[in-house]
């Protein structure tokens, strides 16, 4: 039983650390704000969650377990919200995402349409 717990918690911790590191590499390597934020926002939630689950398997004390569960819930709630708010603030302040030519055409078309409908009334 002990070895099962050890191995599974080790796996969880490893996956979590790997995800966090890949998020860190993403924030350095990706081209613009939105992709960077995407890299961190996605990997951070899962990575931190995995690490917390790995720690939970090791905890013998009920109180510690309960605290870890609370931290996990908090992370699951807050981390995506923060990414959402960041992206929204950036878009609101006029930061344009870097896009490939195809996508750029599409978005500019969309924006034009939007501009027309909103300026008419």
């Amino acid at each position, binding site marked *: 039983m002990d070895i099962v717990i050890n191995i599974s918690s080790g796996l969880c911790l490893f996956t979590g650390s790997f995800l966090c590191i890949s998020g860190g590499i993403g924030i350095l390597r990706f081209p613009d704000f939105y992709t960077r934020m995407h890299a961190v926002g996605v990997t951070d939630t899962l990575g931190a969650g995995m690490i917390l689950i790995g720690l939970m398997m090791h905890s013998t004390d009920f109180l510690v377990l309960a605290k870890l569960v609370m931290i996990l819930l908090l992370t699951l*709630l*807050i981390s995506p*919200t923060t990414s*959402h*708010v960041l992206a929204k603030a950036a878009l609101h302040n006029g930061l344009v995402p870097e896009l490939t030519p195809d996508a750029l055409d599409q978005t500019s078309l969309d924006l034009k349409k939007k501009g027309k409908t909103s300026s008419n009334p």
Partner: protein
Amino acid sequence: MINIVLLTLLVVVAIAIIRMKDLFAVAMLSGIYGLLSASFFVVMDAVDVAFTEAAVGAGISTLLLLVVISMTGRSENSTRHKPLLALLIVAITGGLLIYGTLDMPYFGAADAPIHSHVAPRYINDSMQEIGIPNIVTSVLASYRAFDTFGEVVVIFTAGIGVLALLSVVRRPEDSDNIASINDSMHEQHLVVRIVTKMLIPFILLFALYVQFHGDYGPGGGFQAGVIFASAIILYVMLFGLNTARKVINQTFIQLIAATGVLLYGCVGIASLLNGGNFFDYNVLANDPIAGQHLGILLIEWGVGCTVASVMLIIFFSFAARREVQQKNENQHDKNQELL
């Protein structure tokens, strides 16, 4: 190793704060600085200090800075003159300070004066004398209750000062005008609003936990007050000042700020009247230990009340100022259009 990394990061952040011209980034960096110093304190096993630093330095002071920036604008004014004299003075002072540290005992030295003076007494006797597991709380709230009283009075004075300088007389007809601005501003933040609504009760609960668990673990009135206030500030930021004013009565907060200080002082007076020294809790109950428990509970409650309400007073005064500013700008725009 981890000390070196943290200290290096602190220095990097400090230099970045000086070099940056964008005040928003500076506010954020000062928050990061607070968090880094908090983790540094954790490494040194000073959990209570770390908690305070995380709550105050990284949390609420950043928030207040951001509110101020929303009034003053984002970029720093460029200085014309070269502040050579100031640089010289700072360099000399810094050099003297570093020279002074040469005389200090080495980091972690066992024969340092701090370890041979009163600290052994606190560590050895506080369990018998005060009877609570967290020594920091027993030092703060019982051995050094007078100092803590001074701190609370300082915070209260700061609140009064902000009120005296910034309080705005509001007329009721302003409310509708401002409400419309707020509604248009806040309608779009749906996701954040819902998540916040889910979280606020838990933040308040956590603040109460920190308040009443301060005897047994890191925590206490200061941290709890700040956390409590930040939950309410979060509410104000997302639901608008007007809604918040309906929930939280301004006069009531001011009353609570005063009541906290009064409660703290009254505990001292009560111990005087019962025949002990000022803030000698032993005489508050029949049993000295029970008296200490009661005294610490009461003064921590006083501290929590004062800190929370003063933070709210400061935030509300700043925000009200901004509101007036916004309204004046709107008026100005309208006048321009008419012309």
